[in-house]
């Protein structure tokens, strides 16, 4: 009887381990389980987010030679994305204007990949998740067309770059921001906001704690 018990326990551990391994191998994507490459995935069966869109990219986003071919566009866009979001990701906070502008390249890279028959569906699904996250910075809906997102990122990035350049030279403003008396007043208002927030949360918590006590009495 004891041996049977030990055998059952060992079997349980064995099965659990195997199922863990299988789960680990499971792909974290949906369509990729049915279609490995885009060429396997008929356009009429794809959600609109996975259908290539011919885009008239903003002037200055690509040079003429690049625009001749979808592959060139993808390559240049990937290069930009790699530089901005991977190679120099530590500088994203400092160069937010450039991050916004280069998000247009992320959109272009995703869209042009949709024009490659050999593109991996798994990669595209992962890229789409990242694309949707980046779109949140400008509240662009996930269902919006790539062209719309490209123009929004590009134009906003251009505008923010102009602002960045002008302010970089504005010593007067920088001095004003560092003004101690102004900082004191800002701190008072910020503290006040935090304290009011705590007061409102505490009222709700006090009511809940008291209700719990009264119900259990």
């Amino acid at each position, binding site marked *: 009887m004891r041996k049977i018990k030990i055998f059952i326990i060992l079997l349980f551990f064995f099965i659990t381990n195997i199922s863990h391994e299988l789960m680990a191998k499971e792909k974290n994507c949906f369509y990729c389980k049915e279609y490995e490459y885009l060429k396997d995935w008929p356009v009429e069966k794809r959600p609109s987010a996975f259908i290539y869109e011919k885009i008239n990219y903003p002037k200055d986003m690509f040079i003429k030679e690049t625009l001749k071919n979808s592959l060139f566009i993808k390559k240049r866009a990937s290069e930009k994305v790699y530089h901005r979001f991977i190679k120099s990701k530590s500088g994203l906070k400092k160069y937010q204007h450039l991050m916004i502008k280069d998000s247009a390249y992320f959109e272009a890279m995703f869209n042009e990949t949709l024009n490659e028959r050999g593109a991996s569906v798994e990669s595209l699904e992962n890229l789409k998740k990242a694309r949707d996250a980046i779109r949140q910075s400008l509240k662009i809906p996930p269902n919006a*067309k790539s062209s719309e997102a490209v123009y929004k990122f590009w134009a906003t990035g251009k505008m923010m770059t102009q602002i960045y350049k002008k302010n970089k030279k504005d010593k007067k403003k920088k001095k004003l921001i560092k003004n101690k008396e102004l900082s004191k007043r800002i701190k008072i208002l910020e503290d006040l906001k935090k304290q009011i927030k705590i007061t409102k949360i505490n009222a709700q*918590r006090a009511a809940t704690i008291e209700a719990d006590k009264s119900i259990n009495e």
Partner: protein
Amino acid sequence: MNKLRFIVFAILFFSSKLYAENYVNNISGISNLAENTVKAAALQMDTDTNKVLENLNNELQNLSSANDNIEIALETSISEAKKAVEFAQESIQKGDLAAAVQSLSLVESVADIALTTVPSLNVVEEISLGEDFSSEEISALTSVAGQMAVEKVLDIQKMAGQINIVSKAGLDTKQMMKNLDKDGVGIGSTLTSLDNLGAVNIQNITGQENFQIENFDPSSFSSMDVVEIGMSPAMMQGALNTLPLGAATKALETLSKNPEKLSSSIDPSLITSDALAETIGLTTKSIASTMTQKGLSNSTLNNIGEDLNLNEISIISNEIDNQNGLNDLGKIIEETGIENVSKSLEVAFTSNDLGIAETISKNASQISQALGKKQKKKVKVEDVNLGPTSLELPKSLSDTSVIVGAAILTKPNLASGVQGIVAPPEELKSGGLISDGEISFDNNLSNVDEKLITSNAMAETLGAMTNLETAKLKELGIDKIVQNTGLTPGLVATIGSSGINGLDVSTVVANSVGGVGSESIEKIGESISDGSGGSEVVADLVATGSVNQGMLGLVGENGVKNLSEAMGIQNEDNILVSLSGGLVGSGVVENLDNINSDIVKSLGIDPSIITSNAIAETMIGVDLVKMSSALSSGMNLSDALANAALKDITEIENNLTDMALSQTLSTGQLINDADIEVTADISSIDSSLITSNAMAETLGQAAENMQQEMESDPNAPTNQPGYQAIDPNTGAAPKP
């Protein structure tokens, strides 16, 4: 000292029984539980408000006299905020909790406006679009400005609701706003900036060209929709992108009934009957375009157009489908005058008051942080050094107590009303029954199916959510405490879980009932209830993210049954799902073949590849609200099902509260971790990129994948000779 404070508080409370408008006394009449709960809340608020004032007085002593205009403006704001805190204190003593809570919220609003006037490196004093921007880029910028400006409009509508309550309670808010506006930090100054942008029209709001507080009716303004508020057609397109579908249908309803409300937002020089007709047509088209982008089908769009006698919709709906949303906007900009739009954009990016560039920068900062940091599990709001400190919640708090605590404070918390531009039900708008502090047990504030209001359904749902017998609920008065809110038990639980976790309760309720106040949405709800809507209408609601708690209450028992069955779900009790907002009673997806294939197709999902894996997570039940939100945010069916899977409510303590919080977070947008004091376990909350931590995980993974792909590719630019990294001074990437 504390004892003394309690005695003084008790004496004041006793003497305050003389006041007729005493919420504390009125609600105490329901039961001992109600009395103990409301008094605990009032006492805590009194103690904390005293600490806030004490701390403020200390900080004020350290200030030297103000030297420049900005310092003066901030000082005026601090001084007016102090008056509001003092008024909150007086209101607590009188037992008027609505006035107390709304005065405190008004302090937050005043501080917000003041802080946006502080010079920022994200704003410049002057900017010219010149020839640097193409017409497509101007359309894109206009849409972004509209999307960002709508946040400010929501804030100001909320502030107006607060002013409405506080001024009725006796605070001289007119003088307060005059003082603030004198220094450019009042509601008038902000509305004027929004008017310059084209996000509102002061003529529409006050009947006068320039803002004067004497002509401003805060309750009326707080309840207006996007057309009534005078938003320009150009700004409307971006704004409606971020608002619920019902906000767009409500705008069409107003446009159909009162087209003249649009005219005051058009340049007078352009007003000829032809130009007006064309602008109305283009605005209609622009609104319809945002509805299509949200995922509404052409046939439902055409039905809405027919109902509203907006014939343009049936003509234009076919062309909208395949267009880029910016194309229509480009035409509207041309028609309304590109010069006006350029001016608006210059205002958008140069005005500190609007904070548009600041908001963009804040959102971008979240993305950059997400990419640059490792995932953290929990973030706590830091307590400031002085003033009140956060009350710790006991670990074993019951779900019932969360519901009771929330219900007791629902009316004070929501008295300012839900903002009109999200199209909430009438009674939830400022000045509706929600603003009325009287105790009543038969109000229906969220347009719940009348059959459910008049039956025992509410009590039974409450019983199922709290695991208490009806007799016990009645004995404790919990049934009446919840009925007094006029909301469903599901909404009350949601308010409770959000409130104790630090989310803004009025924003949560706005998300939960947004759109339900639109007649067109009500009609769609009716068609689902009586079964005439068909699968396409169900798919429309799901795909556009319109299945919120308000919608589940609106469609009632039959509607929930039809909605669920179309999604392959058999619920044990459809009434329970309707009134609990999908938190309790929801069934499982037993077989994927049960999901109506038309719906699957309408959602853009290939039915042939849905596998049984997709239902593995749903063995307890499916939260329809989360499901709709996940699908509308672009998630695939498998992830959406896993995300919407419920937990077994009978197995885990405090499960209801966790589930309500999870549902709330999944329907929110880009909630900053710092805005939430996460005390609950949020590990089960999906990944729909809700918090910056979840976003970090997704982006981090994507970045890692990209890096691996690039490095393994011999043709990648980084693997070529002469490769150069980014310029450290400008951040620019190498030229092609």
